[in-house]
């Protein structure tokens, strides 16, 4: 949907300083450009729960982090996000890959389609479903809106393969 260079430049335009990431097949394609960026620091973590904790520390320390994980990682990391987003009220933003949304050829009947949006709603996360590259502006507006309201937010990136 997006190239790594597009995402890298876009995140810099948002003022993001660190990308805390567990890649998937789609997000991972962006990794080389994110790693090469002189303006972004890429922080690869071993599991998604860590991503929220690292991002929380970055935010508390004055940085502007972005969490970048797949929806399966969202499922895994529930308690970590609950703690930092709601106990401490940190307005962290995340890009979450929506596995199999555009194409289920790799994983027919992928239950990510059943659970991703209900889980986002259960965590009371304000999200925008991104289906088209033309929606980059929508992410920009949503991010700014979340920052202004000091609430967490998610850009849910539709993916076509597992």
């Amino acid at each position: 949907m997006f190239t790594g260079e597009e995402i890298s430049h876009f995140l810099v335009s948002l003022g993001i300083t660190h990308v805390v990431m567990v890649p998937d097949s789609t997000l991972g394609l962006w990794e080389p450009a994110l790693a090469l960026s002189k303006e972004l620091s890429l922080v690869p973590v071993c599991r998604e729960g860590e991503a929220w904790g690292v991002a929380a520390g970055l935010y508390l320390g004055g940085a502007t982090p972005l969490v970048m994980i797949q929806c399966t990682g969202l499922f895994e990391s529930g308690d970590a996000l609950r703690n930092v987003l709601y106990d401490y009220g940190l307005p962290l933003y995340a890009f979450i890959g929506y596995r199999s949304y555009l194409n289920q050829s790799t994983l027919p009947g992928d239950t990510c389609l059943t659970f991703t949006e209900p889980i986002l709603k259960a965590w009371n996360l304000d999200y925008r479903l991104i289906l088209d590259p033309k929606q980059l502006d929508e992410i920009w507006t949503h991010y700014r809106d979340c920052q202004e309201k000091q609430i967490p937010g998610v850009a849910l990136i539709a993916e076509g393969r597992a």
Partner: protein
Amino acid sequence: MSDLTLSEAVKILHAARTEEIVVTSMGNAREWMTLAPHPLDWVYVPSSMGQATSLGLGLALAQPHRRVVVCSGDGSQLMNLGSLVTITAQAPKNYTLILFDNGVYEVTGAQPLPSSPETRKNRDRIDWSAVLSAGGFGEVQVYGRAADWQRDVKSWLQKEGPSCAVLRVAPVPNAVGPRSPGPAKERARKFREALTAR
């Protein structure tokens, strides 16, 4: 041989601390809160268990000119073992981990950990020093005596990180979980202000 208690170990660290960021969690946070507070304390209560090391990494990366001291327990660390590798991948020179090894989930009634001989079929004990060294921590040392910890504590606030002091402490009998020291959102706001205003 070990004569170090959690309370004593925490008091020794507290006395040595100057302007470092100190992250405490679970049982060590309970003990830390009995001592004088500091604007750069992050008493991580409530927490997501095991996340202290990750949150500390974020602080260390955002505040590279400040020392970050993260106090974690062995039970917590087992819940977030991968974070040790994440930390050494980033290699923050300002990161010191203090790992309290008591072998139990203390605040839930001292149930033995999967790393404890009591729960292991072959009764072996997981060697935290080996785990940390293999995970990339440059300097790791195990302490069990209060006098040794007292002698070396200041050096751990200056060593090039990521480094780790493992403190073998006895479980506290009938220990209770730490109580939140106040409204969490307000504490987060003040802590961020303290870090970004200086």
